């Protein structure tokens, strides 16, 4: 790989706290190596801001390996930036060239209020899981792990859905701020496995109810979520969720 350095203009959303109105600010960053990650470019900028006595930019991040789901920047109109199947932390500066201008905003959704700058509150996702995103089995109750063979294809599909990192890019990309891709990934993960079967009906109903309570919008199948999902969660899960929901609604008498 050829390496090169570049100078860039950044327009970054600054918002002091959740009550502040917020605005864009423009920064020049110099000598950025194409080998840096996007967040390392922010590290460089922040170090400079601190040295100049200005307030560094706050953003969520932790693993920087694309797996914890913390990082969450809306880059030039797209969650996690230009690369396919990628998280903000795994975006590298070779995606840009000298002289580029990059606009960076937080996730924007009613259910994800801004905490500061690029950091938002995604605790709504935890509450959706609390509504039924689990299998009720107390510790010590389990039978031998090989007692119940599971078709490889099904197990693999369950795994593909369990790979969701809860980042919220799906919500940020959606004009309705719908969280259906996130929810359907969890419902599918559990519905595809025999262990998840006993609670299947309640799970779909309760999790959807919580979703509505949190203020996420409805799904109109625009497919924007699937296109930006870093873990390539398939939109076909939403159809599976809908049928789970219908099935549950028809047969649960409560």
């Amino acid at each position: 790989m050829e390496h090169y350095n570049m100078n860039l203009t950044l327009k970054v959303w600054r918002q002091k706290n959740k009550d502040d109105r917020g605005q864009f600010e423009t920064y020049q960053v110099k000598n950025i190596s194409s080998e840096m990650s996007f967040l390392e470019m922010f590290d460089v900028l922040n170090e400079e801001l601190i040295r100049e006595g200005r307030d560094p930019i706050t953003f969520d991040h932790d693993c920087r390996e694309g797996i914890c789901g913390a990082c969450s920047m809306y880059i030039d109109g797209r969650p996690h930036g230009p690369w396919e199947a990628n998280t903000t932390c795994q975006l590298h500066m070779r995606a840009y060239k000298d002289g580029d201008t990059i606009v960076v905003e937080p996730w924007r959704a009613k259910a994800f209020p801004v905490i500061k700058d690029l950091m938002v509150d995604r605790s709504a996702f935890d509450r959706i899981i609390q509504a039924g995103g689990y299998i009720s089995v107390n510790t010590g109750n389990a039978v031998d792990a090989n007692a119940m063979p599971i078709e490889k294809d099904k197990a693999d599909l369950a795994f593909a859905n369990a790979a969701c990192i809860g980042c919220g890019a799906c919500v940020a990309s959606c004009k309705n701020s719908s969280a259906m891709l996130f929810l359907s990934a969890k419902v599918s993960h559990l519905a595809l496995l025999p262990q998840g079967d006993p609670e299947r009906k309640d799970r779909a109903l309760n999790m959807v109810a919580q979703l509505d309570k949190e203020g996420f919008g409805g799904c109109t199948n625009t497919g924007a979520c699937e296109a930006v999902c870093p873990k390539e969660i398939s939109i076909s899960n939403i159809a599976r969720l809908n049928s789970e929901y219908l099935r549950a609604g028809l047969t649960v008498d409560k």
Partner: protein
Amino acid sequence: MLNSKIPAGPLDNKWTDYKGHCKLVNPANKRHIEIIIVGTGLAGASAAAALGELGYKVKTFCFQDSPRRAHSIAAQGGINAAKNYQNDGDSTFRLFYDTVKGGDYRAREGNVHRLAEVSANIIDQCVAQGVPFAREYGGLLSNRSFGGTQVQRTFYAAGQTGQQLLIGAYQAQERQIALGNVTQYSRHEMLDIVKIDGKARGIIARNLVTGELERHFGHAVLLCTGGYGNVFYLSTNAMGSNVTAAWKAHVKGAFFGNPCYTQIHPTCIPVSGDHQSKLTLMSESLRNDGRIWVPKKQGDSRKASEIPEDERDYYLERRYPAFGNLVPRDVASRAAKERCDAGYGVGTSKQAVYLDYADAIDRYGKIECRKLGINNPDADTIRKQGMAVVKAKYGNLFDMYEKITGENPYEIPMRIYPAVHYTMGGLWVDYELMTTVPGLYCLGEANFSDHGANRLGASALMQGLADGYFVIPYTIGNYLADDIRTKPIPTTDPAFEAAEKEVRERIETLMKIKGKQTVESFHKRLGKIMWDKCGMARNEKGLQEAIVEIQQLRKEFWSDVRIPGDIKEMNPELDKANRVADFIELGELMCKDALNRRESCGGHFREESQTEEGEAMRDDENFQYVAAWEFKAVSNWELHKEELKFEVAKPTQRSYK
């Protein structure tokens, strides 16, 4: 005196016996007992779920925005369990033995045997929760091999095993939250423990969003706060991983066990420049199929593809024919360093070796072609089939490599180099996982317990979940049974007041320094001292220098650090400053411990103590003990020794040849 409380009796009866005789708390009393759990990675989340299910009132804390983001999520390769599903000779005893030997005879036999005993239950529990482990076509669970063993006992979910296990534990914890048994405090950082009458009775935590300090009471406190590899600045740990919780407990009386035992992982993406903020692991599972080599010629700058087979040195296969590429991590890391130091390294920095998949792609390709009945396949077909198999096994790791380096590892061998990965040291705990402070427990990577001087791959996930799901539910009852009459202590108690005041004043002091140097710059400098002088190879002179340099760095930090922003707001620089201040003190203790241990063992390599072939040489006569350090004052510790006894796994010079 240190009392490890290992039950008497034969090794394989100890845990059964303990469980049969420990004290219990009845369900009605459990409802009135409050437990604080700091940290919600695998150890903390599993403990929260298990204790919530038992009916205790649990409060959990983490600094991320959700328990699902704990650093455990990043574990890649897998989790061990002595299931013997492969019929290849595995057993509880073998897992025990491999772990004690892998740890270079510096772990407790009793603890390790218990770990091996409960390992099988962990897999059962996780499958019941819906953890989608990899399966074979017959629908049964699949296994792979990890370093330091000759059986296949590692369960995995592609290269995302930690993620799947943590999501399982997280969901179990969220279920207890929904049931009202657990209350979760995210974006909270524990900044001190509160002791009353010598017992741990609560914590002071900072709400990271508002900056407010909070007081929380608990009949007992569990620290499940992970490892401290970030003391080296660059490591494979998540950016936020820190030692603060363990360090505060240490200062308040919890002894620190074997602080110098650090694991340097052999297969990580090499450093590319000064901007680097962290290093990325390439899972050990890659050594199942990948072959490690360097050119036979020094300073060879040809491309990998231009170096013919007979000019390549597969140095692990050459030096260790019995284990080959699957030697334990400490051995593999030192061997890589040896080659690079001797001038055989590759890449622009020459600080890298190749991890090559060409053979594996070819081998799998031929097998696939046979399966598919393709006769006399051409090279392209074999390659295509082989690549598909490798992609299914390691696809996410290969993708990650390509995103970071811009190179395609299916075409060009990966460049790898050792990096700091895991810390075997941690708070000293007894058999019940209690620290030297009564009522204060420590679980998971944060404690020092089960891995001796070197952890085998796929054993940290096992230990974290063993501690949380299957050990603490028993051992904590044994303590709390005597505490059922203790009413919750109001947080207006003077001990809470005093602890909060101390934390507040420390933060105010930090903010008032208003110096010139950033927190990050101090952290980098600390990391460099540690890596150069307390890293993969250590010697007396270097360690002595490091101690002086760190003491100097601490003074500089406390007089010249610059922290922007305010206290009463979200202020990540302040959070980081709190953590780096503790890392600096820890760094000094690590060097002191490394200096004291004038032997080599596992990941701790003292240049003065090696065999003729350059292998680590233990000194059992003088150092067969756990070093447990008691904090006296800044830069002042007292050493306590816990002698290690080996009744079953008799120490020998470790050999993987």
